[in-house]
């Protein structure tokens, strides 16, 4: 309230020029029902007929023009409250196609195209290899550097078969030579 009083007086500095007695000072502005926050009741009168407009009409009018009223006071829905008029929230902007589907579609197509390309090139390689010796593939996977190849047949150095032959268990079956 202190702020408002000063504001009023700043608007009308030349109180004397308007014709008011100069004895009017701040002390002549009387306050009542002082609260810690700025709040007031108001009614809207109809100038032609001598009655006040019904509350429901005022409420719907305020609801429609909430934004303009807020802006006039440089306030927003949180700082300017109209009792018993809940604020309506702005509806979210929904694009016709959700954005995420677009991005999903793009990445999906890229992955499918890449997969097709790889599969096709794999099939082509397969056909080309089927004309060459096909036995070399399996052993080449694991023992790359140390296979010596003569006439397309790999010679297995004894150690390189690694765990394929385990001596401890081979002897059991061969203990008794079959008749």
């Amino acid at each position: 309230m202190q702020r408002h009083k000063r504001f009023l007086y700043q608007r009308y500095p030349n109180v004397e020029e308007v014709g008011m007695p100069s004895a009017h000072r701040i002390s002549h502005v009387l306050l009542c029902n002082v609260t810690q926050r700025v709040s007031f009741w108001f009614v809207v009168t109809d100038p032609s007929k001598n009655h006040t407009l019904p509350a429901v009409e005022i409420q719907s009018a305020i609801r429609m023009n909430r934004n303009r009223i807020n802006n006039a006071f440089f306030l927003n829905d949180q700082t300017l409250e109209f009792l018993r008029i809940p604020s309506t929230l702005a509806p979210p902007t929904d694009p016709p196609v959700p954005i995420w589907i677009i991005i999903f579609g793009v990445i999906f197509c890229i992955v499918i195209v890449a997969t097709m390309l790889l599969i096709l090139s794999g099939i082509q390689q397969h056909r080309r290899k089927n004309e060459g010796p096909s036995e070399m593939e399996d052993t080449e996977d694991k023992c790359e550097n140390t296979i010596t190849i003569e006439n397309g047949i790999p010679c297995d150095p004894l150690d390189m078969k690694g765990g394929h032959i385990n001596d401890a268990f081979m002897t059991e079956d061969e203990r008794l030579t079959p008749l």
Partner: protein
Amino acid sequence: MIKGSFLVPYIVMLIVEGMPLLYLELAVGQRMRQGSIGAWRTISPYLSGVGVASVVVSFFLSMYYNVINAWAFWYLFHSFQDPLPWSVCPVNGNRTGYDEECEKATSTQYFWYRKTLNISPSIQENGAVQWEPALCLILAWLLVYLCILRGTESTGKVVYFTASLPYCVLLIYLIRGLTLHGATNGLAYMFTPKMEQLANPKAWINAATQIFFSLGLGFGSLIAFASYNEPSNDCQKHAIIVSLLNSSTSIFASVVTFSIYGFKATFNYESCLNKVILLLTNSFDLEDGFLTASNLEQVKGYLASAYPSKYNEVFPQIKNCSLESELDTAVQGTGLAFIVYTEAIKNMEVSQLWSVLYFFMLLMLGIGSMLGNTAAILTPLTDSKAISSYLPKEAISGLVCFINCAIGMVFTTEAGNYWFDIFNDYAATLSLLLIVLVETVAVCYLYGLRRFESDLRAMTGRKLNWYWKAMWAGVSPLLIVSLFVFYLSDYIMTGTLRYQAWDASQGQLVTKDYPPYALAIIGLLVASSTMCIPLVALGTFITRRLKRGDTAPRA
């Protein structure tokens, strides 16, 4: 998740358990030169069950793990909007306020539980398959298939990418995280050890499980990858480097996580305080700016004594805001990634950029893990002559991906997240412990530690350090046995198993009991992988007996 009290058990478990077992698995793979089934069959035919158990566990893991990638895709695609969809609540029917469920929970929780999962109130209500997560799951499996299509050579190249990119993103996040307001609160929380937690065996079990999972022990993927190494490869050096790198990455990631965590906790604490201040200011018509965070308690006391009746009216709505409780909301696993992080991201500037970066990194990590898993499944399949003679490599990979994708549709139903939690908690933990225990005992005592030592010396040309021998033969098996015992005793003491269900009306998680059929499935999960070991051993024993019975009369 690494907390201050967690660092000590984590480092101890790494040195005593992680490094020796990693070295063991790499050495076995490199020596036997086969996938997990073949490698263990070579050590002893009775032990091929260990390899089978590893493959079964990997199969379960790949079934449910890719759902995380699907969710990461979902969030990634939604990060290209302004504002981010999880930062605002949707408006309710007559546009007077926000959606009720969203008001009670937070907007990030609402987006996760309602928009992403569309979760049902309990595990019994199955609901239908949600098409949006299903599409993302299909995409995730297609991506995995693309990477494993050509076998390990192509996987190797992809892993360079999926392993290095997260480091760059983590670095960017570290710089951003440390400059956030409130980050120091989180870091202080992370590094202050709580002594009473160290005495709790659960902390040690969690540290051990964390080490197992992050190193990938017991899954068979390490053996599979190592079998492609050259025999003269120095796997000891690699084991030490890999485990140290892995742990320092975990700690690095935890620093980032906790700085962002601290930011989120501070932000929530301050907005909680602001809400209380607003509530009191409105109810008691106080002057704007009179109530601040520092004098809140004083003023509350004054108001309680000066206006007792009005204060008692307002009191139920006043929340007790505490920074500690915000930090203590220890969310783990998927909740951490998708709720906590998104909540922190939405409050940063240029949140779309951070969100895209974060979920891209999550995807890279997830796809990298999936590649390891599928390699663990595919290597034994392609090794076996029976299957690989009928079908080419591409077809086997495609079949595995297709089956996993089809089963994974279960996790996209409305109750899918509850089933996901079942798989996450029970599919791998106990079985892994048992598998690694049997592995260590088999190599040390069945194959013979001296024999293995001489094999390694012949292969790599290096002598085996006494530390490894001591760990393999004594300490690690004992540790795993004690972990096993603690785990089982913990389960026996708590009685039944419980899970967290999302209650839409309250907007928070509630604890419920598992129905009997869910308990049966949990039992089946654990049994199907652990029983492989004795069953296959028994089967081999019987077939040998029969064979010997056939040949004996001839002599």
